[in-house]
């Protein structure tokens, strides 16, 4: 049994959103001139000549940033129900949530001191 409310609008929104790229690409498929050549197959880089391939080895700093992001993303998921149920929970829950945050702040300080947050 489905009891959530408001998801019929979500479904309609999803269907319309799914139609937009299909219609846009389909219409341009019909309207555009059909020529082919070497120039057309190159990567579009805002008018610049593309240098190298698209699949290059990334810098490891991207990984560092996304790593810190993952950890604090998960923290958000834990803190959101606490914020919603805050009025039903007491002072003790507030202290427990502060402990939770404090443990993760230790990790943030470590990442900061080790330079994982700096692009440099």
């Amino acid at each position, binding site marked *: *049994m489905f009891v959530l409310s408001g998801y019929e609008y979500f479904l309609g929104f999803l269907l319309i959103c799914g139609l937009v790229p299909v219609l846009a690409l389909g219409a341009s498929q019909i309207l555009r001139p059909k020529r082919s050549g070497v120039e057309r197959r190159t990567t579009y880089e805002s008018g610049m000549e593309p240098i190298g391939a698209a*699949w290059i080895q990334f810098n490891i700093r991207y*990984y560092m940033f996304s790593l810190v992001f993952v950890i604090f993303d998960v923290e958000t998921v834990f803190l959101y129900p606490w914020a919603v149920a*805050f009025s*039903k929970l007491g002072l003790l829950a507030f202290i427990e949530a502060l402990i939770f*945050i404090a443990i993760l702040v230790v*990790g943030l300080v470590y990442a900061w001191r080790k330079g994982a947050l700096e692009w440099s």
Partner: protein
Amino acid sequence: MNIADGVQVVSFAVLALMMLGAALGVVLLNNIVYSAFLLGLVFISISGLYILLNAGFVAAAQVLIYVGAVNVLILFGIMLVNKRQPFAPVRSAWLSKVATAVVCLGIFALLGTMVLATPWQLSTEAIAGDGALVKIGLHFFSDFLLPFELASVLLLMALIGAIVLARREYLPDELEEETVLTLPERPRELTSSGSRSNP
């Protein structure tokens, strides 16, 4: 069957087919970048199934963590080790694949038989629905308090461990770039660092 049930069944069928097809693509495609994007599709389909199971918050968490963070992390990992080399062929690789497929089908048959044979005692209580979020918050601070605090310790360990493991080539890189940074565009830093670097 009224129209709401029909929409649910159709949504379930579409999501299930999308999920199974994308999951097969994840394990069977040769190009691992396509596999990673299909993995995102699997996560999104599962999020839709969670909505069908009356769990809006967990569906949002699924999109937020899996699609927004874990999938991006996996894509960065792929881009970091992106060395498109064909692996050296192994003797009778097809045999192990066929054997694994047979075993997996066997596990599926076993699980399916068990699922269909078990008399599930369905609950007739009222479904929490939108109130589930508050219930989850109350659970976190009553009977799931210890796992809640341990989760933060686990996340701390994962953060520190992953930084320590991934950082090794990062450190000399950083030192190298510090020497580059002594020639910046800004004149004040140039004079100060220049006087420091002179013997």
